[in-house]
């Protein structure tokens, strides 16, 4: 058994080395496929992060009448937090609202003067609500506008921004779906190209397969080297494609940070590099293995 495996590996390696031209041509296609595959994974991450960052900017603020007692607001915060549509609720008290306001207008002497003259705090307490899904804001707004709680509410920001939020939600949804579809289509196209290339490579070796059959080689002994070759293609192509992808990401990463604050693409890439390599190598190997299975099935019958 060990001898057989040794012979299969030996045959695979010498076969690859002695068919340099075929090996090189196939490798180029595999590298391009895995480069596309890797770019799709990274690109998807960029798109998702961008959309998440936009989505995070959407929220609803509920401003309470200044007469509403704090415990009622906190009770409402709890009720909201228990709703399945709600991701989180932030409470901003009157004092905090004033602090924020003063900070924002620290350089404006007229406003700070006006505030001191006023003597009391004119600002409302508020709850800042973020939904799990932008489509949920309508439901949350409906609840806030319902009569049971409406009496203590001064203003719900959604009522002014409704149109913008709904449009943004629609755009976000379409973008996510388009991203998924595009990824699937491109990955499928790349897979088919790699697959075809490997099939043609094995097809060009069909005479060899027939000769091996003639000499009494078992199916496993014939198939083995092709499977190993598939794995070798997968590993080498994964290494090369990541080596090409790395500088591309390194140089685009700073620009990404401008568009999506706090987004570190290079950090993501280096942190997940090993995983990415495993994905690509596995993807390449599986294509190699399946194509050899399919291509050889016809020739192993006689």
């Amino acid at each position, binding site marked *: 058994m060990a*001898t057989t495996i040794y012979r299969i590996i030996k045959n695979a390696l010498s076969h690859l080395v*002695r068919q340099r031209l075929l090996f090189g041509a196939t490798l180029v296609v595999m590298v391009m496929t895995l480069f596309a595959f890797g770019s799709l994974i990274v690109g998807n991450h960029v798109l998702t992060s961008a959309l998440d960052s936009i989505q995070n900017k959407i929220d609803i603020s509920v401003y309470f009448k200044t007469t509403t007692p704090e415990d009622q607001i906190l009770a409402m915060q709890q009720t909201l937090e228990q709703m399945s549509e709600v991701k989180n609720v932030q409470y901003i008290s009157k004092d905090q609202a004033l602090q924020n306001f003063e900070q924002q207008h620290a350089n404006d002497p007229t406003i700070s003067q006006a505030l001191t003259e006023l003597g009391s705090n004119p600002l409302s307490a508020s709850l800042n609500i973020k939904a799990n899904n932008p489509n949920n804001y309508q439901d949350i707004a409906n609840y806030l506008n319902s009569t049971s709680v409406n009496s203590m509410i001064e203003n719900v920001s959604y009522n002014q921004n409704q149109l913008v939020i709904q449009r943004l939600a629609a755009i976000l949804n379409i973008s996510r779906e388009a991203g998924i579809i595009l990824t699937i289509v491109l990955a499928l196209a790349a897979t088919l190209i790699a697959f075809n290339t490997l099939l043609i490579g094995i097809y060009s070796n069909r005479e*060899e397969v*027939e000769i*091996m059959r003639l*000499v*009494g080689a*078992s199916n496993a002994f014939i198939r083995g080297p092709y499977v190993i070759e598939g794995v070798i293609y997968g590993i080498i192509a994964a290494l090369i494609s990541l080596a090409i992808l790395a500088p591309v990401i390194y140089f685009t990463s700073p620009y990404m940070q401008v568009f999506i604050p706090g987004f570190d693409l290079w950090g993501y890439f280096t942190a997940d590099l090993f995983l990415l390599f495993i994905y690509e190598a596995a993807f390449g190997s599986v294509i190699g293995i399946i194509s050899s299975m399919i291509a050889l099935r016809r020739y*192993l019958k006689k």
Partner: protein
Amino acid sequence: MIAFQDVYKKYSGHDALVDVSFRISPKEFVSLVGRSGAGKSTVIKMLIGEERPTSGRITFGKYDVVKLQPKELPQLRRHIGTIFQDFRLLPTKTAYENVSFALEVAGQPEKEIETLVPEVLDLVGLSDKANNFMNELSGGEKQRVAIARAMVNRPEVVVADEPTGNLDPFNTMEIINLLKKINELGTTIILATHNKDIVNHLARRVITMENGRIIRDEENGRYSLA
């Protein structure tokens, strides 16, 4: 050892073999002769399980060839050495590796391979070409590699289908002499050929075919197509 019983083979409408029956005993040297298209190659393909007969029975030793599953064919073929007009050697392997491949597939230990292969290459006179690839060898040399491969695992039978079809008279005699030598070592030989001189030179059993039928089967026969 080998028996064909009432073997028929039809290819989409026309008959390649009609009612073919014969027996071959161990250590025989049998020539299968006939015009091109007579059915010689078809007989050989049936024997090694490359094609299945439309009807009839073929046995080789303990193997009921027609009933073998594709999976079981490799076992059968390790008992039969094959030689063809077009050599059928592996282009990405050296002469040495082409020969050792037949032992590798049969799971022979490395040690045995290392002693057997040089021996056989020496027997066919190719010791100095052991590391050459197939495109670096002449037709006669290629056919000698094929013979070395066919005999290296000491098969009971060597079948040769027009092995000299692509060779000049000198190389033809070399190949035939090698086949005679292998036969003297105890291996059955089945030689399909339409070369009259070879058959008459051999003066051994001759099975003559015409239009898919066996029309003559003579011990110590001569080549004669009426």
